[in-house]
């Protein structure tokens, strides 16, 4: 597959996604960036802004095994990872057999991840990091590619377990899902408030194609000046002590470069531009910095501080 073909494929994916999802193009692009970077994304937005629908639609366009975990406070780690069950053979002999959980898929939608207990969250996050699951004395390797696309909403924080920064760091991107514009909302109403015609989506990307595109994304060249700019941006989060209490780790530098490369590939460019770094700085950094008291006193949000760093 050449770069031009890759661009056509992405354009086709977006056109198919737009048959179901109205607007949210930047969010969809960022989710695809996470997939091409072989990493995970956390989608945060108010209820009803098509977080779950976007991921479900995207997964239907990928010829990959998809599973969904609806996180609740009573969800146990074994509900995610799987457990041993007793299986009775025809001879009457009983054996323990491993029953894989929903984490054994290529694309895992972890809906409302902040509703799960820290213990369950840890089980999922360990699978994300190690790409393997240990149950009892046995370790099971997860199938490649493996993505976790988690969602959470920023309201109704009672009874939730917000992800600690160290665990949120496992997600390459924290994608903000905003409300649609007026025109988009009108289109949503027109499309879904009338007789619902279920869109039949066909898989576009096979597993091999996706792996190849991931490989292609890493091959996108980047100029030294732009690379330096990205690293300087990440290190500046550790130096701006007046607004940021704890800055981003070197993992953010790697993530920013990878995300910028993937974005360039999606846009059909053969090089990384400064604009890619600018655009990807927000989803890469926003969950990796802890604002200082002074920043909070000034009423600044993560994105406001990142904007200041980009100036």
């Amino acid at each position, binding site marked *: 597959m050449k770069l031009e073909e890759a661009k056509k494929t992405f354009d086709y994916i977006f056109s198919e996604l737009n048959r179901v999802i109205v607007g949210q193009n930047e969010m969809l692009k960022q989710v695809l960036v996470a997939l091409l970077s072989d990493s995970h994304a956390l989608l945060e937005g108010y209820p009803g802004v098509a977080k779950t629908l976007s991921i479900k639609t995207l997964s239907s366009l990928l010829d990959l095994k998809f599973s969904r975990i609806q996180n609740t406070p009573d969800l146990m780690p074994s509900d995610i990872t799987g457990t041993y069950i007793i299986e009775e053979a025809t001879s009457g002999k009983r054996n323990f057999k491993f029953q894989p959980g929903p984490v054994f898929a290529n694309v895992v939608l972890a809906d409302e991840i902040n509703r799960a207990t820290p213990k369950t969250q840890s089980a999922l996050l360990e699978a994300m990091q190690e790409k393997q699951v240990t149950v009892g004395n046995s370790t099971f390797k997860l199938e490649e590619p493996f993505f976790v696309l988690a969602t959470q909403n920023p309201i109704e924080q009672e009874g939730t377990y917000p992800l600690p920064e160290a665990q949120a760091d496992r997600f390459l991107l924290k994608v903000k899902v905003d409300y649609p514009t007026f025109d988009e909302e009108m289109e949503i109403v027109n499309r879904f408030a009338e007789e619902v015609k279920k869109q039949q989506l066909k898989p576009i990307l096979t597993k091999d194609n996706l792996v190849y595109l991931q490989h*292609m994304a890493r*091959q996108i*060249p980047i100029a030294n*000046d732009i690379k330096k700019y990205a690293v300087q941006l990440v290190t500046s989060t550790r130096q701006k002590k007046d607004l940021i209490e704890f800055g981003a780790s070197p993992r953010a530098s790697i993530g920013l470069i990878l995300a910028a490369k993937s974005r360039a590939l999606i846009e059909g460019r*053969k*090089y990384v531009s*400064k604009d890619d770094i600018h655009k990807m700085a927000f989803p890469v950094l926003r969950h990796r910095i802890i604002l200082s008291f002074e920043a909070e006193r000034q009423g600044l949000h993560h994105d406001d501080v990142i904007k200041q760093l980009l100036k």
Partner: protein
Amino acid sequence: MKPIKQALEEARTSILQLALFQSALDTLVVYMLLLLGCTLLSLPLWYAVVPALVYSVIHTYGNLKDVNFASIEAKYPQLSEQLITVADNVKDQNEILDALNIEVLQKMKEIRTAAFLNFPKVTRELSVMVIVSFIIIGASAFNVKFLDFQETIKDLREFEPFKEYDINEELLQYEESQNLSEILGEKTIEELGKQQLDLELNPLMSDVDIGKVRDPTARTFQEVAPPDIKASSDTSFEENIPKQYQRMVKTYFKEITKS
């Protein structure tokens, strides 16, 4: 050598040559202006060379520092971020990079060296040089001088008030005007200089107690006196006291031994 590498080197060399040409032109303008100054002030012409050389070194260094692929990208926005990417990854090779190299190579064909030459500036500088040249020739031909700088310096050196001016004298006068006795001590003592000091000692006011003077101790001397010692009579021992005073002197010495 890869075609892209060759193209990059060629582009770099062209820009470098243009930068050197621009520096040389700027330096020439500065030199001409300095030369005009030297002519009008009757200074030796080599006075213009040194500052022009210093300017040339600094200016050329500054110009060469700006020679990079980013400057080409600034002139050709269609190459923006691509040229530096290709230049930084010239040693690497992969499918995408090869495609980018071909694309950049194609776009580089549009680069015109003339685009990097600032024609209005060059025209301005050449005009200035022509005008200044004519002024220099005219000034030399008609012996126009605003100021004979060397003569002025000579005059200044020979200026009489300067010679008479003595800083030490000025300082001395200043010191005299100040009350410095507390720091430097009594002025009357300090000012003796080479003058003769006449001291008169009064034996009666002496603290020496003659009564406590002991008898001289006996000492033995060498029997044979050294040859350079000569004895002779001294007139000071001759009694040359007038007769009417002899008695008074005798009484004086008697009385003095009693005390």
